[in-house]
């Protein structure tokens, strides 16, 4: 049944290109205007260490903090079950030197506030200003990593397929990343190290999808002597459609179970990947193939005498 579908995907290719271009534009504008809502991994913060005379009820502390307006505070235990560490984002308008000085006051205020809400004796162990240097460096690394990865992928696909396919894959990849980041920016969802990892995973997923489709296009160009490039691409997309959908469904099954069961720390990751997978599925159908058609792919492009199945030796 799967190979029997005959959807004219490329018939709406101009519409798809328009929609994608607009989404990408909105994303870029939002990234410039709103930036991303960086989590504490990437922003500076004040770290306040507190000691309780009795075992701390973390949930209670969280509740107290939220009621008192410290919405973004992160609470972790520290050493024993009586020591906690509270991370507070800082006011970015204050100079870095003053931040360090303010840290002490912030700590005292927090300790006093928490003391009122509990029977146990709260002692302030210390409060420090934590600079965002590390997070920034990581973000830089992530960005650099993506660029290098893009370059290597382009070369590999150009060698294995043809450079028009590399452009297609990279455009699809950039499309997926920009729009996913754009959604994070528009809805101001928190961007932390886990979300960064998700972006990296999206690269892997998006590529995988695109390669599978490209592979079929290459095969069809070599096998079928007749048909325009558009017909060829349409046939390939229809042939791979069931696989594209099944893989997306299984991946989404995994991601939704992580979202609902995996606990707080992996939620951001799951949301980022769900967005990425949905967009990646769409882009593997409409973007990569679309770019290939825009670049006037011809049968001759793929007729280089590559010995099909040369790698099969010794494997099943």
């Amino acid at each position: 049944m799967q190979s029997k579908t005959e959807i004219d995907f490329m018939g709406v290719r101009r519409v798809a290109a328009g929609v994608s271009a607009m989404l990408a534009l909105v994303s870029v504008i939002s990234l410039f205007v709103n930036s991303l809502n960086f989590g504490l991994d990437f922003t500076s913060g004040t770290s306040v260490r507190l000691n309780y005379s009795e075992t701390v009820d973390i949930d209670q502390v969280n509740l107290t903090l939220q009621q008192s307006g410290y919405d973004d505070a992160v609470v972790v235990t520290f050493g024993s079950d009586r020591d906690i560490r509270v991370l507070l984002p800082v006011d970015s308008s204050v100079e870095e030197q003053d931040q360090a000085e303010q840290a002490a006051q912030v700590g005292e205020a927090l300790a006093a506030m928490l003391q009122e809400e509990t029977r146990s004796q709260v002692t302030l162990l210390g409060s420090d200003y934590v600079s965002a240097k590390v997070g920034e460096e990581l973000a830089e690394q992530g960005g650099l990593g993506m660029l290098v990865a893009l370059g290597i992928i382009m070369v590999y696909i150009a060698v294995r397929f043809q450079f028009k396919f590399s452009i297609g894959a990279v455009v699809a990849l950039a499309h997926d990343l920009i729009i996913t980041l754009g959604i994070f920016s528009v809805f101001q969802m928190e961007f932390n190290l886990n979300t960064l990892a998700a972006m990296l995973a999206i690269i892997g997923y998006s590529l995988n999808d695109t390669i599978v489709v490209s592979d079929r296009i290459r095969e069809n160009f070599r096998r079928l002597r007749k048909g325009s490039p558009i017909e060829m691409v349409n046939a390939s997309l229809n042939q791979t459609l069931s696989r594209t959908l099944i893989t997306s469904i299984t991946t989404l099954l995994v991601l939704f179970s992580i979202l609902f069961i995996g606990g707080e720390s992996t939620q951001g990751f799951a949301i980022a990947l769900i967005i990425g997978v949905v967009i990646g599925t769409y882009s593997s159908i409409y973007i990569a193939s679309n770019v290939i058609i825009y670049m006037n792919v011809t049968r001759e492009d793929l007729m280089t005498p590559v010995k099909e199945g040369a790698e099969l030796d010794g494997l099943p």
Partner: protein
Amino acid sequence: MLNRYPLWKNLFILFVVVLGLLYSAPNLYPDDEAILINNENFEISEADIALVETVLEAAQIEFFGVVSDENSMQFRFGDVDDQFRAKTIIEEALTDDYIVALNLAPTTPGWMQAIGADKMNLGLDLQGGVHFLMEVDMEAALERRMQDNLSNVRSILREQRIRTRGINLVDNTYLEVRFSSSQERFAARSELINNFPEVQFQNREVNDLFLLDMRLSPDVILQTQRDTLQANRTTLLNRVDALGVSEPTVQQQGSDRIVVELPGVQDPAQAIRILQRIATLEFHLEAELGASRTSFEAYQTPDGLPVNVDNDVILQGDRISSVRSTLDQNGLPQVQINLDAQGGNQINRVTRENVGRNMDILLIETKSRTIASLDEQGNEVEEIEFFEEKRLISHATIRTALPRTFVITGLTAREANDLSLLISSGSLAAPMTIVEQSVIGPSMGRENLESGFRGVQIASALVVLFMLMYYRLFGLAANAALIMNILLIFSVMSLIGATLTLPGIVGIVLTVGMAVDANVLIFTRIREELANGIAPQQAIDSGYNRAFTTIFDANLTTFLVAVVLFTIGTGPVKGFAVTLMIGIVTSMFTAIVGTRAIINLIYGGRSVKILSIGRYSRSLSSST
């Protein structure tokens, strides 16, 4: 024959499966709560063990599995409460020289450990722990080196009876020597140039003065920084060992920072105290009788003998390249010290002229202490204060002009051992400050681990169910391969000692997705072939063959991405990349070779009319 694997291939797959099971099994054994006791300066003795056992028995805390070696002893406990109580009691019983650290001890059977089957290392985010970013004070390192050069220049010129009008440290890389005549300067320059190959010399005249500028070349500065960082890293590693952390990370980051990650450390405050303890070494001569009262300081040897130590430093600890306690040819204990080239020259020059005098080694430790005081409101506040503690650790007579490698003799075995430990802990090249620290509580780590795994389990269950419903018998083969794949990832990670982090779990999830994808590709191909009217056996064969190129390309590209991420990234990025790389390799094996073996066992070598691969037959009948 079509769709039959040769025996060796089936045996090979079986072999991989058994290995996978064997090496992932240790992860089923939970760790014991334990306490590790170290002494930085002295060996652990039987008496120490007996003392700890007595106090624990007195407090009615049950313990077991006591092991010890010369550097440490370990006690295991039934639960966390006992472990915490025991720590307080032991700390009270022992002196401050002992480090009492909470840790976790493995419970895997001996034979598993013997074949190298250990637990996977869990990252900070999965078992809690501390992360520090330490910045090495490079300026201080350079300044010390230049101070060192300055006193050398002074002594060389004094030896050669060349008079100067003063030597001046302009900045940390730049020394200025003033002379009243160009002849003197010329003499000095030709003498110094041999002694300081790493320094660039330049003449300069200001007013009536003849100046000689000595600068460290950029190469030397860079090399100094590199060496300093390396020395600090080594020292940190040694200190981290005292905490009994199973898989510490002590890594260089950038040009002047060191990342320290201590997973599983249950008492971060203590870790901070130990890492921040800064120690350096200085070699001095003993002050001569009748020396001016301001030119020396009074110390005591470990035996309590009063010694006046001259203020001039003849050698800094960072010139030491290695130290160990050995036995001489008569079987007597000694401490052997190796210096670097410049250190060798320095000590040779000084000792040549001072044979018969005593040489002293000072250990300078920066320690922190908590002081309690009352603030304005009358509340008790605790503050951490740093202070320097200087100790005379060795007092020995110079018998001959010392070469690069020399020995300190006349010690007992214990003294030799203690001294070598002290010297190696003191060769930290430059002071460090903690610029960033983050602490993940053990409970938070456990929560991350549990929720992460619950996610993987439920996700796998759903995928397994879906594949079974969609692809029937073929789905079953894919599911077996999927489970095998997860086991293989675990065992490879345990084997190569990779660290599992939360992003790593996520990497596994992605591979689960990709492994299934490979099977989906193969099975849809087989269905297509069947729909085209090809016979079942051929359909299986060509389905596997034709899907292979696609799977290979898709996986290889993703693998390339993972390699890039691994090379460039640190921390979470790296953790993700490692599991992804391992997962791609294992999933290629299980999804292609593994499922094929199962399918071959089911269908191979017999005549088959219908394959249990889902709804292909219906679509075939509807189209005909």
